């Protein structure tokens, strides 16, 4: 879908991208990395909004250095910050954006209503954007990126500032995008759980360099060597019970971390909970999460 070879982008002395090479597969791809790692720079170069200092980048098989404006017909972009005017209604704004992309009035109108229907926006689409809630604004932002039926859509932090319900809804929408259209999704975010729920593969960028490119399913789910236990009642009794069995327990205030040896560890835990009369709310062998993978790579 996107192929970059040795892309360098320099701002003064600062190297935002340093010999960045990548081949991004189709599907839903998440980009992770600390602030200032070069994620946004890469996305903007791929959009043709910035020109790289050196290197070559092809999007959907077309070289970007030649026709940066034409490629944007095939690309949708949802920026991170709030960037929609307050004085238009949702429908008006989307039609305007569609027509700025080169659609006809009829086409843009039809498409607008289709997308908004798909995003489950009702009558409020005829209200002024200024009166919208954060979730609705975010939906309008997403819709304007999809209006001209692009082949790729870049989503820059689509869930930032959304409350939990709106966030879940937004993630479901993005998840469903690939089911109802051929649009490919490139998602950049800071919330690692989003990547876990939405993306097929993940890219981690740091200091302008590619650190990792992997399938999400492959990394999440690997078991670690610790059992996490949450109990109620007197935790001291529980811990001393386990100490009798020469098991060390780490208490981080709310959960207990117990090293995993084999299945007998589970029995020991249950035994201890019965003996100490502590209620056992949760016992689980922790699996590798995006958090731990991310931390491992970044630090």
């Amino acid at each position, binding site marked *: 879908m996107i192929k970059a070879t040795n892309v360098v982008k320099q701002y003064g002395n600062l190297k935002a991208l340093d010999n960045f090479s990548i081949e991004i597969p189709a599907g839903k791809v998440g980009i992770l990395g600390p602030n200032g790692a070069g994620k946004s720079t890469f996305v903007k170069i791929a959009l043709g909004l910035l020109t790289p200092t050196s290197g070559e980048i092809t999007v959907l098989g077309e070289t970007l250095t030649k026709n940066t*404006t034409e490629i944007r017909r095939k690309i949708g972009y949802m920026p991170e910050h709030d960037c929609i005017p307050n004085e238009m209604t949702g429908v008006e704004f989307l039609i305007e954006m569609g*027509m700025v992309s080169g659609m006809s009035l009829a086409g843009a109108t039809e498409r607008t209503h289709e997308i908004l229907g798909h995003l489950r926006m009702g009558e409020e689409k005829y209200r002024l954007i200024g009166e919208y809630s954060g979730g609705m604004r975010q939906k309008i932002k997403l819709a304007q990126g999809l209006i001209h039926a692009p082949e790729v859509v870049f989503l820059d932090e689509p869930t930032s500032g959304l409350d939990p319900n709106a966030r879940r809804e937004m993630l479901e929408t993005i998840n469903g995008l690939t*089911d109802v259209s051929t649009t490919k999704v490139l998602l950049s975010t800071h919330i690692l759980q989003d990547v876990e729920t939405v993306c097929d593969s993940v890219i981690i960028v740091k200091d302008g360099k590619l650190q990792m490119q992997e399938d999400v399913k492959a990394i999440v789910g690997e078991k670690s060597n610790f059992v996490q236990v949450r109990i109620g009642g007197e935790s001291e009794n529980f811990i001393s019970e386990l100490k009798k069995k020469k098991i060390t327990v780490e208490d981080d205030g709310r959960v207990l971390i117990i090293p995993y040896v084999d299945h007998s560890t589970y029995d020991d835990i249950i035994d201890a909970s019965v003996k100490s009369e502590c209620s056992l709310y949760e016992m689980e062998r922790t699996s590798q999460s995006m958090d731990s993978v991310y931390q491992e790579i970044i630090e």
Partner: protein
Amino acid sequence: MREKAQLSDRFRDFDANLTTRPWIVLGMGLRKFNRLLTLKTWNGLGIWLMIAVVYLLTFIRFILFIEPEDYPCVDLNDEYQRCVPLDFYGDLLGNAGGTKLFLIAIAATASGGIIGNDMANKSIHLYLSRPISRLDYLIARFIPVFILLLLVTALPNYMILSSMWSGNGLETSWLLDRKWLIVNIMLQGILYSGTYSIIGLTFSTLIKKEGIASSTFFLFVYGTSLVCETFFTILNAFDIDEADYILLLSINHVVDMLSYLIFDTKYYVIAFFTPREVDIGSVELIAVFTVIFAGCAGFMYWIIQQMEANK
């Protein structure tokens, strides 16, 4: 379920059928023009009101009270002429009696937020991510103000022309004798509209708040014009020959002088109730104008170029 599946198919196979860039730019400009003239906002109302005033003035001042034989030019004294198309752009104050105040006010109101609002609510990032270049965007934003100003510059002048023509019995020969006039009026209209729009856009780019941008534009253009004229008068009182050059500081006067140049008439400013000739070479004049125009355009382009780079 069936219905949803249908929707999805249409959604999936949607063909956007995109047009080419010139059409996008033109369409963008025209839609913005349409939005400028909406009656829903105070700005739109104000613009409508001022347009009405301009036409009213045109009708009363020029159509009713000018005899067809005095059109287009009448001798003021031995040296100077008063031409109706030039008088139209004159000051409302003083004995010239024109519509300049309203033209500048319309330009200020219309152009104040035209780029600044996009920058303030950051939707400029969305526009720039569409298949148009930055220059296209600037042109698309220039068009609406330009058209709006043509409506109050060239159009009323043509109205005066046609009313004079009908006063002369609608004879084709009358019109054919004044072919130059038709062209000149258009040139003049383009000159005024273009200059005011580009300066307005520059202020809008420079100051992101609509109201402040409008008032700064107005104060800058009209204020400097008043100040320069006052100083010109004072300098004349001291009989200083180079006083003419102070008028080059005022954009208003530069445009006026160019417009007099188009009509090939001597330019004068009324100081102490008598017209005083201002004699500045056409080369200098055009050079100053080009510097202003290119400076504004270049500045805007530069700011828009900076937009993404520093983010």
